[in-house]
C-alpha cells in the first residue's frame, strides 16, 4: 500500500511538472559560422512573414552549436559537418534520441589564393600536403620561390573538421594560423601574396579561387554553382540543421519553410546552393 502511494506521488509530480515543459515562445538557432549569414537571412524573412515568431540566430562554430544542442540551450543547431559519433552518444545519453539531421544547403569549400599568386590549380593530395606542412614552398607547385603561409579555421569550426577529415586526412601542421571565421581567412589571404586559405564560397569576394583536382589525372574544377550543384567540384559538402527530436509546432513550420522553394531561393541569394 505504501509502495503504491509513493509511486502514485512520483507519477503525479512528473505529470504536473511536465505541463510547463511544452511551451516554446521562440526558436533559437546556434552554430556554424559558415552558415550564420544564411541563417540570419532566413530568420529575417521568416519573421517578416510571421511576426508572431521570434527566431534568434547566433554563430560560434558547428562544435559550439552541437554542444548547445546537447546542453539544451538551442532548438536548432547549424552545422557545416555531420555530427560525430561521440556527439550522437551524448545526445543518446541525455535525450534518448539520435538527433535529427536535416540537409538544408550545399556548399563547396573554396581554396583561396592571393590574386598575385601564379598557382591556379591544386590536387587534393597537394592540399593535404600543404596543410600537413609537407609542401612548404610555392615553387614546388609551379609558383614563386616563396614560403607558403597557411590560414585556416579554429577547431570549433565545422569547416575545420570537414577539411581535416575529407582533405587533409592527418594532423594539421602547427604553422597553420587559426582565424575566427571564413571572412577573416579571406582577408588574410587578400593581404598575403603567399597565403592560402579555405572556407565557404559565400565569403570569397576579392580573392582568387583555386581550381581543384581529385588527382593528377582528373580535370581541375572551379567551384561554381554548376560544379557544386552537380557534385563535380571535389570538395562539396552539405550544410545541416540538427535537432534533438523530430520537429513539431513552430519549429517544424520554420524548417518546412527553409526547405521550401522560397527558403532555398535565399540559399542561392547568399551564395550557397540548394540542398537538392
Amino acid at each position: 500500500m505504501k509502495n503504491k502511494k509513493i509511486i502514485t506521488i512520483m507519477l503525479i509530480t512528473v505529470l504536473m511538472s511536465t505541463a510547463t515543459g511544452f511551451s516554446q515562445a521562440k526558436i533559437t538557432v546556434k552554430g556554424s559560422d559558415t552558415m550564420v549569414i544564411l541563417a540570419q537571412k532566413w530568420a529575417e524573412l521568416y519573421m517578416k512573414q510571421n511576426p508572431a515568431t521570434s527566431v534568434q540566430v547566433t554563430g560560434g562554430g558547428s562544435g559550439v552549436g552541437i554542444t548547445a544542442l546537447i546542453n539544451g540551450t538551442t532548438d536548432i543547431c547549424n552545422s557545416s559537418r555531420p555530427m560525430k559519433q561521440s556527439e550522437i552518444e551524448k545526445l543518446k545519453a541525455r535525450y534518448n534520441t539520435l538527433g535529427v539531421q536535416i540537409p538544408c544547403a550545399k556548399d563547396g569549400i573554396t581554396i583561396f589564393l592571393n590574386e598575385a599568386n601564379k598557382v591556379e590549380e591544386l590536387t587534393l593530395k597537394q592540399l593535404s600536403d600543404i596543410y600537413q606542412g609537407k609542401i612548404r614552398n610555392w615553387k614546388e607547385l609551379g609558383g614563386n620561390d616563396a614560403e607558403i603561409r597557411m590560414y585556416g579555421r579554429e577547431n570549433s569550426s565545422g569547416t575545420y573538421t570537414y577539411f581535416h577529415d575529407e582533405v587533409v586526412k592527418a594532423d594539421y601542421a602547427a604553422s597553420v594560423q587559426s582565424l575566427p571565421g571564413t571572412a577573416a581567412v579571406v582577408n588574410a589571404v587578400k593581404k598575403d601574396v603567399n597565403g592560402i586559405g579555405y572556407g565557404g564560397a559565400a565569403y570569397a569576394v576579392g580573392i582568387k579561387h583555386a581550381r581543384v583536382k581529385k588527382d593528377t589525372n582528373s580535370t581541375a574544377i572551379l567551384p561554381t554553382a554548376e560544379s557544386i550543384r552537380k557534385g563535380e567540384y571535389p570538395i562539396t559538402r552539405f550544410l545541416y540543421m540538427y535537432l534533438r527530436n523530430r520537429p513539431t509546432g513552430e519549429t517544424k513550420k520554420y524548417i518546412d519553410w527553409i526547405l521550401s522553394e522560397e527558403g532555398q531561393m535565399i540559399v542561392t541569394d547568399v551564395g550557397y546552393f540548394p540542398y537538392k
Partner: protein
Amino acid sequence: MMKNKVKPNVTEMKKLFAIAGLIMISIHGYSQTQKIDSLIEVIDRHEGKINALDDRVLVNESDLGKLNKIKISGYIQAEFRNYQSGIVKTNDPYSTFLIRRARIKFTYEPLDGVKFVLQPDFSTGNLVLKDAYAVVNIPKIKDWTLWAGQFNRPNYEVEYSSGQREVMERSRVIRAIYPGEREIGVKLEYIGSKIPLKFQFAVLNGNFTGSQPIDVDTKKDLMSRLVYSVKLPQAGIGIDVGVNGYYGGTKAKANPFISRITGETDSVALGSYLKKQWMGGEIQIFADFLGGTAVKAEYMSGTNNFASLTGLTSTIAALKGDPNKERVFSGYYLYLIKNIGPRFQLVGRYDYLDPNTKTSGETSTTSELYYKTWALTTQYYMNDNIRISLQYEMPKNETNTKVPDDLKDNTLTVRIQAKF
C-alpha cells in the same frame, strides 16, 4: 599735387605679392612640415606601443592556448535516503543524508589525439583516485585509440557515468562482477567513423577493488566488447547490439580452500586458478516517439570467483571456514526510459541477479539468494548543471527457511546533482 600722384608699379607690386606669397607659403609649409614631423613622431610612438601590445597579446594567446588544453569538469551528488527496516544501517538510521559523489575530472589534451585524465573522488571520508589514464590515437590507424592506466572496464552500464545514468545505482549483476567499475591495464578501442562499429579489447590485472597498486597474480584478465549500431533515420530509431566477454581468473595463493559451486568446501592446490569467465549480450534501442524513448537491456552468465577474506594476503593463515568461492551466476537488466519534454524523464528498471544458479531454496546460503529489483525513477533537469532525481527501489529476494520472507529493504532516494 594730386595730379603728380605716382602710379603703382605693377611689376614691383607683383614681385611684392610673390615674395609675400612665398613667405606665407614657406611659413605655412614650415608649419605643415612641423606638423607632419610631429605626426610621424606620434605614429612612430604609437606603432611602438602597438608592437609592444602585439607581443603581449601573442604571449597571452600562447598562455591561453596552453590553458585551453586543460579541461576541468566534475559533479556532486547530495542525497537523502529513507530505508525500510530490513536494511537498517550502522547505528540504526532509517534515513540519512549523504554525499554520494564529489568528483573533479582533469583532462589535459596537449596535442590532437593525446589525452590525459585524472579524476579523484572527494566524497565524505573517501579520497579515492577513480580515473588515471592516458589515451593516444594510434598514428596512421584512424579511429583506433590506446588507453593505459586505471579506467572503467569496457561494459555499457559500467561506462555509463552516474552523472548521466537514469537510475541511481548500477544493476546488481554489474555491481557483483565489476566491483568498483575500474581496473588497471591497457585497452585498445576502435570507434568507426565510417562503419558504425565499436570494438574494445582490454588486458587487465583482474583483481582490482580499489586499493591494490599491483596485480596479485601473473596471469592477466582479458575483456572484450563489440557493438554494432543500426540507424533508421526516417523512423527516428537507432539500435545498438553487442556482445561482450570476460576471460580471466584468480590464483589461489594462500588459501587452499574453495567453496565449490554446490557449496561444499574443498581444498585446491596452491597456485591453481579460480575461474572468472562469462559472456554477455546487450541491446539499446533509441526511438524518437513523442520525444526520446529508450529500451536498454543486457544479459550475462558465466563463472565468477570471490576471494575469501584471507585469500588475497599471504600473511594470514588459510581458513577452511573462509574459503574462496567459485560460482556460476546469471543476471540481466532492462531499462525503459521516456523523456517528457526537454526537462523530464520517467524511468523504470527491472534487474535480476542469481549469484549461484546451481542452488536454490534451502540449498542457498543467505548471500546466494537471487534478487529481482524494480527501480522507478523520475528526473528533472532544472538546467544544464542541475538534476533532481526521485527514486523508489524495491528489491525482492529469494526465500528459504533462513530468510523466510521478502526483506523489508525498499529505499526511497532524493538526489540533487550539480555538475559543471
